[in-house]
C-alpha cells in the first residue's frame, strides 16, 4: 500500500518539471540564436575588414599615384555588393579621394571623423600601406544580412526548438494523463477490493442465514418425522397392545387367539417396515446385496402390484432383453418399486396406466447401467413439487396417508447402490420415475429363487448368544431354547471370548452394536481362536457393516422372527457339520 501512496507524490511535480524543461529548451534556443547572431556579427566584422583590406590593397597604387579615378573604379567594383553601405578612400593626409554612399550614408570628408552608418552597419577603417608606408585609409561600412534572411536561418533553429518543446509537452501531457489514469485505476482497484470484501461479508452472512434456515428446516423435518413416526407407531402399538390385552383374557376362543396373534405379527411387521424406511432414509440400512435379474424380479412383482394398486390401474411391463443384472438389496429394490408404484396409484385416483420399462443405459461416469422407468398417466407435478419430491417427509398426501419417506427411500437406496433417480413430470402429463442402477459383473446366483427355505429346525446345537440388551437377550434366549438349542448368554464380547476359550460351541449368535468389543471384532477374534466356528450377526443397523460389510457372515436384521432365526442357525450348523 505504501508504494502507490509514494508514487503520486514523487510525480506530482511533473507539470512543473515539464514547464521548466520547455522553458530551458526555449532559453537554449534563444541562446543559440543569440550566439549565432553574435558569431555572425563577428564574422561580418571580419569579412568587412577583409573586404576593406582587399579594397585597400587594390587602391594602393591609385593612392600612390594620386589616381582618384582608379580609386573610384575600385570603389565602384565593390558597390556590386548590395550590402555595402558606405565606402571611402582617403589619402595620406586624410582627405576623401573616392567614395560611395547608399541611401545618403556618404563617407565623411575626413577619415579622422568617425560616423555611424545605418542602424546596424558594420564599419571598418583599414590603413592603405605601400612598401611599409601608410599612404592612406579605406573605410567600409557593410549592412548586415537582411533581417528576413537571418530570420529564415533562425527559423530553422526556432522550429527545431519549438518542435522539441512540443514533443516534451506532448510527452509530459501523456505522462500526466497516464498518471491520472493509473490513479483512477488504483482507485477502481481499491473500490473493487472493497466491493469484494463487502461481497465476502455478504456471502458469509448469507451462508450463515442459509445454515440457520437449513437448521430450521432440519428441526421442522425432525418435528414432522417425530410426529409421523409417533402417529404411525401409535396406530401400530394400539393394535399390538389391544391384541396383547385380548390374548391375556382367559377363555378366549382359539380362532380369536390366532387372529389377535396374527394382528400383532402384522403390526410388528409394519412397524419394522417403517423403521426400515427410516433407516433407508438415513441411508443406514444394512444392504444385503445380491445379484438380481431385474426383469425377473419385476415379473415376479406384477401380481403383488396388481393387488396393491387395485383394479382401476392397469400395469403394463415392457422389459428389454439386453439389460444386465444388478447387485443390490432385493428387499430394498422391491420396496423402492413398490413405493414408486404406490405414488403412481395415488396420482391416479380415477385409475390409469402404470408402465414399467427396463432399458440399458450408459452413464459417462458410472458406465453401463440399467434404467427402470415407472410411468403413470396421473396428475403429474408442478415444478415446485417436483423439486421437493425426493425431500424426506415432503408429501402431498393428507396426514396419516403418507410419511413422506417413499421417494426418499427410493433415492437413498439408489444412491447407496451406486445409482441415481431421475424424475420427469408435468402437471396433467403424468410422471416418470427412472431408477438407474449400475450393472454388475458378478455371475447370477442360482436363480433368484432362494425363497427362504421352509423352517426345518432339525439341527440343534450348543449356541453362544452375545447380546448386551437384557430384553432382547432374554427374548433371543427364549427363542433359541424354544428351537431346541442349548444356550449360553454372554453380555459382552469380552465375556464371550472367555467362554469360547473355555467351552466348545457349535455356533455363535452375536449382536453387532455393543459397548466395548463390537460383534464384528468378536467375530474376527473368534475366527483366530476357533476357526470354523460359525458366527451369525444381528443388528438393527450398523455403521460398521454398512461401511465394511459383514465379511461374508450371515446377518439377521432386527426385528427378526422365529423362522428367520431358525433357518439361519440351521444353515450355520449344517455348514459346520
Amino acid at each position, binding site marked *: 500500500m505504501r508504494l502507490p501512496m509514494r508514487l503520486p507524490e514523487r510525480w506530482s511535480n511533473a507539470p512543473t518539471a515539464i514547464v521548466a524543461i520547455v522553458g530551458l529548451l526555449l532559453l537554449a534556443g534563444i541562446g543559440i540564436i543569440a550566439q549565432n547572431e553574435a558569431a555572425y556579427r563577428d564574422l561580418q566584422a571580419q569579412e568587412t575588414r577583409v573586404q576593406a583590406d582587399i579594397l585597400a*590593397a*587594390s587602391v*594602393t*597604387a*591609385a593612392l*600612390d*599615384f*594620386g*589616381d582618384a*579615378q*582608379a580609386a573610384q573604379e575600385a570603389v565602384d567594383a565593390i558597390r556590386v555588393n548590395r550590402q555595402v553601405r558606405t565606402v571611402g578612400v582617403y589619402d595620406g593626409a586624410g582627405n576623401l579621394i573616392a567614395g560611395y554612399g547608399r541611401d545618403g550614408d556618404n563617407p565623411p570628408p575626413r577619415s579622422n571623423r568617425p560616423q555611424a552608418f545605418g542602424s546596424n552597419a558594420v564599419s571598418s577603417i583599414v590603413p592603405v600601406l*605601400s*612598401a*611599409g*608606408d601608410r599612404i592612406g585609409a579605406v573605410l567600409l561600412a557593410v549592412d548586415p544580412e537582411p533581417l528576413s534572411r537571418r530570420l529564415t536561418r533562425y527559423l530553422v533553429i526556432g522550429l527545431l526548438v519549438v518542435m522539441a518543446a512540443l514533443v516534451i509537452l506532448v510527452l509530459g501531457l501523456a505522462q500526466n494523463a497516464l498518471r491520472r489514469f493509473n490513479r483512477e485505476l488504483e482507485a477502481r482497484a481499491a473500490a473493487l477490493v472493497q466491493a469484494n470484501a463487502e461481497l465476502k461479508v455478504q456471502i458469509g452472512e448469507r451462508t450463515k442465514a442459509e445454515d440457520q434456515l437449513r437448521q430450521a428446516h432440519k428441526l421442522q423435518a425432525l418435528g414432522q418425522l417425530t410426529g409421523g413416526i409417533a402417529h404411525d407407531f401409535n396406530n401400530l402399538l394400539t393394535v399390538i397392545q389391544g391384541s396383547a390385552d385380548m390374548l391375556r383374557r382367559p377363555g378366549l376362543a382359539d380362532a380369536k387367539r390366532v387372529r389377535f396373534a396374527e394382528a400383532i405379527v402384522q403390526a410388528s411387521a409394519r412397524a419394522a417396515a417403517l423403521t426400515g424406511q427410516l433407516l433407508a432414509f438415513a441411508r443406514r440400512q444394512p444392504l444385503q446385496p445380491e445379484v438380481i435379474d431385474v426383469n425377473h424380479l419385476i415379473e415376479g412383482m406384477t401380481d403383488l402390484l396388481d393387488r396393491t394398486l387395485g383394479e382401476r390401474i392397469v400395469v403394463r411391463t415392457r422389459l428389454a432383453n439386453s439389460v444386465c443384472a444388478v447387485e443390490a438389496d432385493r428387499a430394498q429394490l422391491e420396496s423402492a418399486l413398490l413405493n414408486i408404484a404406490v405414488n403412481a396409484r395415488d396420482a391416479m385416483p380415477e385409475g390409469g396406466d402404470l408402465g414399467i420399462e427396463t432399458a440399458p443405459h450408459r452413464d459417462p461416469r458410472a458406465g453401463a447401467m440399467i434404467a427402470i422407468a415407472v410411468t403413470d398417466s396421473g396428475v403429474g407435478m408442478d415444478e415446485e413439487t417436483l423439486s421437493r419430491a425426493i425431500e424426506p417427509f415432503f408429501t402431498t398426501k393428507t396426514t396419516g396417508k403418507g410419511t413422506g419417506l417413499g421417494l426418499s427411500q427410493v433415492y437413498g437406496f439408489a444412491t447407496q447402490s451406486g445409482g441415481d433417480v431421475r424424475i420427469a413430470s408435468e402437471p396433467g402429463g403424468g410422471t416418470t420415475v427412472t431408477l438407474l442402477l449400475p450393472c454388475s459383473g458378478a455371475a447370477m446366483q442360482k436363480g433368484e429363487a432362494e425363497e427362504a427355505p421352509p423352517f426345518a429346525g432339525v439341527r440343534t446345537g450348543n449356541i453362544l448368544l452375545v447380546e448386551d440388551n437384557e430384553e432382547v437377550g432374554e427374548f433371543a434366549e427364549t427363542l433359541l431354547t424354544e428351537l431346541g438349542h442349548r444356550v449360553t448368554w454372554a453380555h459382552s464380547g469380552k465375556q464371550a471370548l472367555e467362554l469360547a476359550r473355555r467351552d466348545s460351541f457349535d455356533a455363535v449368535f452375536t449382536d453387532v452394536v455393543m459397548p466395548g468389543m463390537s460383534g464384528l471384532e468378536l467375530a474376527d477374534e473368534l475366527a483366530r481362536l476357533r476357526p470354523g466356528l460359525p458366527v451369525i450377526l444381528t443388528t438393527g443397523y450398523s455403521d460398521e457393516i454398512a461401511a465394511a460389510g459383514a465379511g461374508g457372515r450371515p446377518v439377521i436384521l432386527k426385528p427378526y422372527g422365529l423362522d428367520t432365526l431358525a433357518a439361519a442357525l440351521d444353515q450355520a450348523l449344517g455348514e459346520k457339520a
Partner: protein
Amino acid sequence: MTAARALPAALRLLIAAALALAGAPAGAQPSEAAVKAAFIPKFARYVEWPAGAAPGPRQPFQLCMIGHDPFGAVIDQAAANEVVEGRGVVVRRLAGAEGAAGCHLAFVRGATAAGTARLLLALRGQPILTITDSRAGPQRGIIHFTVAAGRVRFFIDQAAAAERGLSISSRLLALALGVRQRRT
C-alpha cells in the same frame, strides 16, 4: 621717407605672404613635371627585378637619368623621400647608355626622338625599367608617360618588361592607360 619706404616694404611683405598663402593651393595642383618626378621613384614599389639584378639588402635602388634630365632637383627630392622596403633611391645622371649597368630604373630622353630611340636600343636586354615621356617623342620605354584629360597617365609595355625579366605588379597595371601584353 622712411615711412614711405617702409610702406612699400610692408606691402611687399604682405604680397609675399599673400603669395605664399596662394602658393599652398597651387602646391595641391602640382605641375606636370612635378607629378612625373613624384611618380618615377614610386615605380620601384611595383616592380620586381630578377634575382641577380635586384639591389642587395640595404642597398638603394639606382634611378638613372639617361640623356637629358628635365626634372633637375625635383627628382632628387622625390627620390630622397622614397623608401622602398627599407631601401632608398639614389639618382645617377648618365649622358649615354654606357655605364647603365647597375641601374634599376632609367628615365630615358635623348636630345631628339631618334636619340631617345638609340638610347633605348642600347639599353635593350638589360634588367632596367625604362621610362619615357610622350613629350619627348613617340618612342616608348616600358613605362611611357602621357597626359590624358589633364592628368598624367602612363602606358605599360609588359612584353618588354618580361623580356628583361622584370615583373610588374597588377596594381600598377590597373592604373595604366594601356598595357601592351606580353606574349605568352
